[in-house]
């Protein structure tokens, strides 16, 4: 696996540290709220994308129902927090709920492979979204006291910590034995199973980590927004954004989701004035190009530019190399 946490050179570590320091000091220097809000959104997307990356990128299981776990995390967090529980505990509950749901979905759906798993999880997530929309149709607003005590910088640091945390988690996973097993499954599930990798348990671990992190991101979402419709957190758009960001950045890599999120947020903000969904159009086209031509995404592109070219075998290619001439 290219670019993973295993080969972080000194230069890169220093660079990352500097970037983090700058981002960390930002709230002190920046007084304009919209920049801080942008930061929160960016960190949230990084976290969400990284959480999807664990399952979709590292383990190769494309889960299109990811929004469901994001939504569950938000739901639990919001509910408990509004009921008087402290934020960290509320978030922990969100993580727990999301993880339990994730494992349940995994148990139900892991018989499905590849694309069938993707559309199956999508269907389940939609069911949940519809149910939540019907059971909780009213907007959820923070109590007056919480609004008065609202500090954007708190949210900013929480989001930043989440983004860093999820990225480190992905990096750690990549270097761990579990990560290697996940990679084996991604490359060829049947072969991995035959060689005793214990595919089912590995996939279960992957889904638990992935959905747990998604739940955490959802908790942050609930912490950050003053008011929102509960159903909104379950919208498939969150899944699609995570998928887009991860693939364009470089699916399965550590830095990919970060780069992808940066580009995504930048384009969305920059283009919002002229053409509302133009960033989606661009990303849609980019996505197709990347799936077909440059599976390593931006990470691979920058590596190639810097001459670190190591041609990555497209994760979705046919192992036999294709022999037909049709």
């Amino acid at each position, binding site marked *: 696996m290219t670019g993973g946490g295993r080969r972080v050179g000194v230069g890169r570590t220093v660079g990352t540290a500097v970037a983090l320091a700058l981002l960390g000091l930002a709230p002190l220097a920046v007084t304009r709220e919209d920049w801080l809000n942008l930061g929160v959104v960016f960190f949230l997307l990084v976290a969400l994308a990284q959480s999807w990356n664990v399952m979709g990128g590292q383990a190769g299981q494309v889960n299109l129902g990811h929004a469901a776990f994001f939504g569950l995390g938000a739901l639990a967090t919001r509910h408990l927090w509004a009921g008087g529980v402290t934020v960290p505990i509320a978030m922990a509950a969100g993580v727990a709920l999301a993880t339990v749901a994730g494992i349940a979905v995994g148990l139900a*759906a892991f018989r499905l492979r*590849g*694309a069938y798993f993707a*559309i199956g999880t999508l*269907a389940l997530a*939609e069911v949940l979204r519809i149910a939540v929309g019907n059971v909780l149709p009213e907007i959820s607003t923070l109590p007056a006291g919480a609004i008065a005590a609202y500090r954007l910088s708190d949210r900013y640091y929480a989001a930043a910590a989440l983004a860093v945390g999820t990225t480190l988690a992905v990096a750690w996973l990549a270097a761990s034995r579990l990560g290697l097993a996940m990679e084996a499954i991604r490359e060829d599930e049947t072969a991995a199973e035959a060689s005793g990798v214990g595919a089912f348990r590995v996939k279960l671990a992957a889904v638990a980590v992935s959905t747990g992190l998604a739940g955490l991101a959802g908790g942050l979402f609930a912490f950050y927004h003053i008011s929102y419709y509960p159903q909104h957190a379950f919208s498939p758009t969150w899944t699609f954004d995570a998928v887009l960001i991860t693939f364009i950045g470089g699916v399965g890599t550590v830095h990919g989701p970060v780069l992808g999120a940066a580009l995504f947020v930048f384009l969305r903000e920059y283009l919002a004035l002229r053409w509302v969904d133009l960033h989606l159009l661009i990303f849609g086209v980019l*996505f197709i190009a990347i799936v077909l031509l440059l599976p390593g995404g931006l990470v691979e592109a920058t590596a190639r530019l810097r001459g670190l070219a190591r041609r990555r075998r497209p994760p*979705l*290619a046919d192992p036999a190399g294709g022999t037909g001439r049709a």
Partner: protein
Amino acid sequence: MRGLVQQLILGVLLGGLYGLAAAGLSLVFGVLRVLNVAHGELIMLGGYLAFGLVTLLGLDPFVALLLVIPLSASLGALLYAGLFRFIVRHGEETRIKNSLLVGFGLALTFQALAVRLFTADERSITTAYRGRALALGGVVVPLGRLLSLLVALLLIALLHAFLRRARWGQAIRATAEDWEAASLLGIDVRRAYGLAFAIGTALAGAAGTLVSLGYSISPSIGLEWTLKALIVIVLAGLGSAFGTFVGGVVLGCAEALSAVVFGGAYREVVGLLLFFCVLVARPQGLFGRS
């Protein structure tokens, strides 16, 4: 009781469109082994095309349909030549996974394009007969939707006849069953693929036209219709045009029933849950041997 019958009638009328929507995707999936999840967006675009032809040129919607079909077919041929042609170079499992991803990107692109071109508002085609309805023993049958159902059935019948009798229809069926054996008989498999994709897209465009006639369209309906088509395909299986149509009608009725029993808000849920259950019951997918 009357309320139930009324809902069922409406369910059948809508279900016919589900069947038509699914038929296009079923053809593409069955022949090319490609899961074009942008199929719903193709339906959406067809609807907008029809809407444009009717409002700008003042055509009757069913006349517009005669134009939408070849135009959609051309779009399909273009999409195949420019995109899906490369996906079919791989083996089956890879094709399905790749096409899912590419279809996803395509869906997003089309949706964003539609928002730009048409705004996010809902549109529908209004005609003289849209408001009219037949009253049969207490239940109301909207005329426009009834005509749409009949047209959908007609298109399905034409598809069936084509696949059964026409030379290229048989070639497509042969390619679907065993593309290597088909090519050994002189069938240009790439052309069969392209033709199947074009026909599938044409059917999507037709479905979109009928949707904008009897219901309404907006740029975001793509995902919903793709899911409907997938549900019908999983329920009805591949390989039979009429079977797919019936599957669509069944879904429409199931939704109507669940709306009556659980309330309209949960209409979609029954289809999605059925879908998931059937999928899990057949984990080898739609092509495996049971």
